[in-house]
């Protein structure tokens, strides 16, 4: 695996470079700000003088809305995501671009809506999109959401609250899922594109989280927030084929393989920290440890990372092939997030109390790692979906 992964890593760097992103330079630019962002959740302005926003904004855009070269495939995005996850997972999630807002826009929007709103990312200042479905009272059971949309002349009025919205506070717009009629369940749900300066829209707070602070999980509210007709994402095409909630699934399908790759990158970083510790202190760094135990530990880590990586790649490849891949995406994400915590735990077991010294990277890694099994659907939820989907495939 080593040989080929090195090749993939090199090819990913080449591809990113064609898009104007030098991953080595990005890695160093992130490295300089990691501690500050872990403190404040903000990306310091120095980061943007270090590394221009223009290429990052457009990196994940579809070819149709930009003249810039794009990464072009979910596999390429996964390979690049592994690099940024290695640099820092919080930063990887905080990178500018439309993010999770893009899939519903592509699935549900009219072509002119797509051009207009994704076109906003052709910009030299960093821009973000956000995706809001979770509410204080509904997490994994997202079809039970309560935020309401009422039709009035010229548009809709939104009322309700959303929470834990990634990049919510810095987003230029948020794709918000709200219900026209709760009695219709998921079929009453529509997606609305809400600009950050819409009247009645408010950023209530950025949560202070244990880790992944760069992702700025945001609580937002809508008080009779007016959304013009043209910001309803419900194209003639989509009305025939989808319910809006299916487009939310699109977002998860899009993001879960990439999140898994970010986690794989993170795991590689933790392994590096562990190996650095071992080569400094040797097996004698732990009382009673012998070389065989060290080898066993590193083999365990190696096999878990290799498996997590392939699971993420397979989900991405199926996404590129236009095949159903929600199960593969859930498998990749559930496995990678469990592995991440196990690896951090193993590394801390070796490092001992020194792992918790102020500013020690393993201390931050532990806080960051706990997030993976929660965001974008908890591990328990992913496993429930895996069991359901596997049974469905078996019956077919």
């Amino acid at each position: 695996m080593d040989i080929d992964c090195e090749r993939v890593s090199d090819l990913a760097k080449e591809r990113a470079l064609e898009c104007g992103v030098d991953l080595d330079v990005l890695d160093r630019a992130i490295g300089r700000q990691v501690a500050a962002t872990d403190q404040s959740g903000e990306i310091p302005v120095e980061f943007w003088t270090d590394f221009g926003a223009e290429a990052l904004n457009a990196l994940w855009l579809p070819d149709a809305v930009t003249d810039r070269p794009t990464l072009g495939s979910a596999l390429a995005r996964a390979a690049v995501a592994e690099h940024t996850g290695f640099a820092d997972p919080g930063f990887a999630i905080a990178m500018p671009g439309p993010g999770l807002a893009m899939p519903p826009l592509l699935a549900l929007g009219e072509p002119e809506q797509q051009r207009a709103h994704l076109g906003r990312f052709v910009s030299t200042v960093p821009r973000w999109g956000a995706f809001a479905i979770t509410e204080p009272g509904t997490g994994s059971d997202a079809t039970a959401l309560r935020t309401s949309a009422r039709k009035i002349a010229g548009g809709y009025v939104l009322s309700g609250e959303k929470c834990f919205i990634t990049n919510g506070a810095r987003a230029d717009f948020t794709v918000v899922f709200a219900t026209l009629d709760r009695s219709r369940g998921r079929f009453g749900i529509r997606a609305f594109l809400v600009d950050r300066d819409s009247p009645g829209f408010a950023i209530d707070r950025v949560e202070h989280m244990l880790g992944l602070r760069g992702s700025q999980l945001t609580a937002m509210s809508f008080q009779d927030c007016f959304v013009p007709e043209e910001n309803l994402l419900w194209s003639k095409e989509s009305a025939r084929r989808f319910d809006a909630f299916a487009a939310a699934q699109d977002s998860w399908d899009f993001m879960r393989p990439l999140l898994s790759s970010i986690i794989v990158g993170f795991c590689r970083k933790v392994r590096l920290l562990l190996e650095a510790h071992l080569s400094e202190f040797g097996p004698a760094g732990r009382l009673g440890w012998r070389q065989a135990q060290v080898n066993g530990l590193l083999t365990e880590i190696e096999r878990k990372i290799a498996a997590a990586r392939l699971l993420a790649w397979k989900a991405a490849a199926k996404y590129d092939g236009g095949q159903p891949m929600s199960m593969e995406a859930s498998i990749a994400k559930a496995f990678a997030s469990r592995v991440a915590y196990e690896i951090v735990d193993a590394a801390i077991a070796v490092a001992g109390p020194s792992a918790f010294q102020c500013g020690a990277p393993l201390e931050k890694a532990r806080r960051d790692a706990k997030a993976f099994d929660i965001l974008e659907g908890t591990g328990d939820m992913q496993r429930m979906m895996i069991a359901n989907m596997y049974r469905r495939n078996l019956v077919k």
Partner: protein
Amino acid sequence: MDLEHAMSSRFSLDETEMERAARDAARRFSQRWLSVGREGGQHKSLDAVAELGLDSLQSAAGAPELAKLSMLAFEELGAADLGHAAELARRLSSDWLSRAGNASGARREDHGGQSGSDTKRREARVPACDPAHGHAVHIVCAVLVGAMRSAVDHAFIYAGERMSFGKPILNHQAVALRLADMVIAVESATLLLHGSACAGRAPTRSEVIALAAHVDASSQLVFRDAVQVLAAHGYVASSRTARWFEAAGPIAAFLREIAHTPQGDQELCSPVPETSHGH
């Protein structure tokens, strides 16, 4: 599209016609093979497959498509009867090792008159095998992975039919979560196996060690939890899950032996050569 190719050549998303044919042939073969075995002529049929398997593997060393077919065939054999397939895998492994000239790994034994379920007693004495002989490990992993897939499907079917408290036990979350972890285990083991066996090159040492360690751990989980899903029905010695549980023990132990091979050619404490990419 070099990047995408380098990433996705490790697995295939759709079964090709040739792969389907290989599976079907292996399935038909294993049925015949098992019926011959029951009539007492098992070691004769073992010899026949041994030849077949070894030849295809040898030519497969440089041809990923062939390696894939051979892996699928061994998976089918493992799915049909893990005990018998393990016996075969063991013989193939030692053949492979002796042809590769590894004196420590190669030992032909007399299998006459032994049934597949006796495997466990001899497996425990498998001589330590150098992970450099990755193809032997591939075969062993393939029969195990094939059986794992059967065990997962078997557990799902049971859990979808067995009722408790008015619903199939699969609809109880405690059972669903267990089943999901079994799916994750078999998916990840399959990907690692195919990624290593079908790379079109000899596997590296660390790759074989990682593969053996992962298939060991994944198979332990799957066969243990398959019994658990069926509970007492799965613990009855004649049940499929009980037989998987029994037959898998020594095979997994063999893989663990591989995974624990001392990595003498490496510096103390950094068995995985580290590059700037962190592999």
